[in-house]
């Protein structure tokens, strides 16, 4: 057919390709208006000393960036980002993998899918709960005197339980605990969905060959759902580098500035200290860091996929 009507086919393909460009317009406009333009403005502002609003803008060149390099507070915020990655990526992903497998593979089979569904929803609940409410609840759970956590520790015989949110040496771990609780539902839900498409015969065959649960988990479950693991790790890492609301609600960066993270520090400079230029510089640096990390992870994923295909 095509061979007999070469002109028409090539022309229609040409027209079609041409008209496709229009479909990209809304996306391009959106990207331009919502992402690229504000980002460019942010970079532009970061070159000035400016209080915002109608105040005069004073040219400062790269001054904000050199100030940033010497800013102790910024570096400690950056260090806290590592803790955020542990709390939002490493721990939830590891626990999420095991939980999803247990729910899907064991509880779902032993007690029926509805039990697994209820439990899955329960793990997801913290993600739905407004962070302001969660923060309020946790501030009572973690209260130093009479809080749930320390009451339990007291019953367990701990003599002087820690001041979770008040001790600058401990507060970051308390925040991490809340974040793990907050985050855990996300990998569980994604991984359980992923497990649906794993061929059950693989498990049956492995079981017949005498593989135990942990063995099957390592040899089948994890390799089979690796794409989803990548997605979770990438999105959660980006989320960890941008984490803001839990810090604002739980600690306000305290005690003594020990739980400040970069996005909160940027916000504080923008809105509290009226140092818009400096806040923009922090935001620009963080965007660059996130961009580089995301690209690096995508490259790793691409390579891993290729290796998988090549095998």
């Amino acid at each position: 057919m095509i061979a007999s009507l070469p002109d028409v086919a090539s022309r229609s393909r040409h027209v079609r390709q041409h008209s496709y460009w229009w479909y990209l317009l809304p996306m391009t406009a959106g990207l331009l208006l919502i992402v690229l333009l504000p980002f460019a403005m942010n970079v532009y502002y970061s070159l000035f000393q400016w209080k915002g609003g109608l105040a005069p803008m004073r040219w400062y060149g790269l001054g904000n960036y050199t100030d940033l390099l010497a800013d102790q507070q910024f570096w400690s915020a950056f260090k806290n980002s590592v803790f955020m990655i542990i709390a939002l990526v490493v721990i939830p992903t590891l626990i999420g993998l095991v939980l999803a497998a247990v729910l899907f593979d064991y509880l779902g089979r032993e007690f029926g899918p509805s039990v697994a569904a209820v439990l899955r929803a329960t793990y997801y609940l913290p993600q739905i709960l407004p962070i302001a409410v969660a923060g309020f609840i946790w501030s009572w759970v973690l209260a130093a005197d009479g809080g749930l956590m320390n009451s339990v520790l007291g019953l367990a015989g701990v003599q002087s339980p820690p001041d979770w949110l008040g001790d600058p040496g401990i507060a970051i771990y308390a925040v991490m605990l809340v974040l793990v609780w907050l985050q855990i539902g996300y990998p569980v839900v994604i991984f359980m969905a992923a497990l649906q498409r794993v061929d059950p015969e693989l498990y049956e065959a492995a079981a017949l060959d005498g593989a135990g649960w942990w063995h099957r988990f390592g040899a089948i479950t994890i390799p089979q759902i690796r794409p989803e693991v990548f997605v979770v790790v990438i999105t959660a890492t980006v989320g960890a580098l941008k984490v803001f609301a839990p810090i604002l609600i739980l600690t306000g960066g305290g005690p003594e500035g020990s739980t400040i993270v970069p996005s909160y520090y940027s916000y504080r400079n923008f809105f509290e200290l009226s140092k818009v230029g400096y806040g923009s510089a922090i935001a620009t640096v963080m965007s660059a860091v996130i961009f580089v990390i995301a690209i690096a992870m995508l490259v790793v994923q691409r390579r891993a996929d290729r290796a998988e295909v090549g095998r």
Partner: protein
Amino acid sequence: MNTLTRRGFLGVAAAGAVATGLAGCGSPGGGSSSKAFKIVQYEDKTSAQSQGWQLALDLFKQKHPELDVTFETTSFDAFRKNAKLVLGGSSVPDVVEFNKGNADGGQLASQGLLDPLDDAVTKYGWADKVTGSMQAFAKYSATGEAGSGSWYGVPNIGEYVMFYYNKALFKKAGIAAEPTTMDEFVEAMDKLKAAGITPVSSSAATSQGFNQMWVWYSLVSAYADRTSIDDFMFLRNPVDFSSDPWKRGTEMFQDWIAKGYLGTKLGGLSYEQAIVNFLSQKTGMLIWNNGSFARTRSDATFDWGYFTLPGAQMTMGSSGHLWGVPTKSANKDLAYEWIETTLSPEVQNKIGELGGLPLAGDTTKITDKVTQQFTARFDELVKADTLTFYPDYPVPGFLDFIQSNMGAMSNGTETAPQYLAKLQSFYDDGRKTVKQG
């Protein structure tokens, strides 16, 4: 789910507001048809002030049956964020409530979004109703600094900081009478401590743990005079924090922390937790403002009383939010009349009866004894001109800075001189930034 419903509700409310605005726009040329008048405010409906304003609204509507009055309620945060857009837009309300201070009211005034009210103040005699320190945050300079210049706002109510105390626990600790001097107050705290009761319920979390900051500033205020406070608050003369009242107040604060008068492990506590700890009888006293007066009355299961820091020369307290008239308001004379209505004896006395600390009420007319005394104490402080505002007003970013250091002092990782040195440099930097404009 919660946020969704709220957002949905707000959407409906906004649509409603737009609809009424449009309805109003359609009719101005109509002559006999009603003229639109829009009031925008953000008070919680249950508050004394808001209930007083409902009465004001009735009075105002009675007087002006020809007007189509809209009384719109927004939220504090929403108005703070959108004030510039709302006041600079094309359909501007006729009269608005706004937040006091350099960062909010000062900016709106200096950017020409609010109209000076000096003529109306003279015409209606508002300066006789809003007096002394209650005027301070109603006035702004051309660069938007509070404390002097033209009137841009008019407050209706005030607030002050006090110590609530548990009479049963005082008795148990062997304290016979309410302390009336600083020495007696310290003695009372010693007795409570000896009886195994935390003397004062406090908190120092960076976010929302304001009690320690209030203890500290109350102690500074105790040894301050009008000039030292106004220099600090309105950036008039440079402040030397290594001298009194700052030195004395801060050293005393450190001493109180060390002696355990204010409790321990405060770094993670919020003011809400401090209030609950007092209401659940874990502590002898609570430092807070009139904001928890009604709550203590309804929730305390014990006999209680209150007093301002005994023997103090000055006391923490301030005026409330302000009424202002947007430059683009189409009905300025009516706006002044509305403000006058909220300051009328009927409205002010209603606010007073409900415990809302009105600035122009007749305190003797309050029927409830406790509320009457509570209001009379406020009147005394205003009359003596000894209110010292809140310490975080003067320079940008001050609240977080003070909070963070309150945490450090409460944890014992920072001494009074260390804090004062940091305070000096932060305040001086901020002062320079503000003065630069």
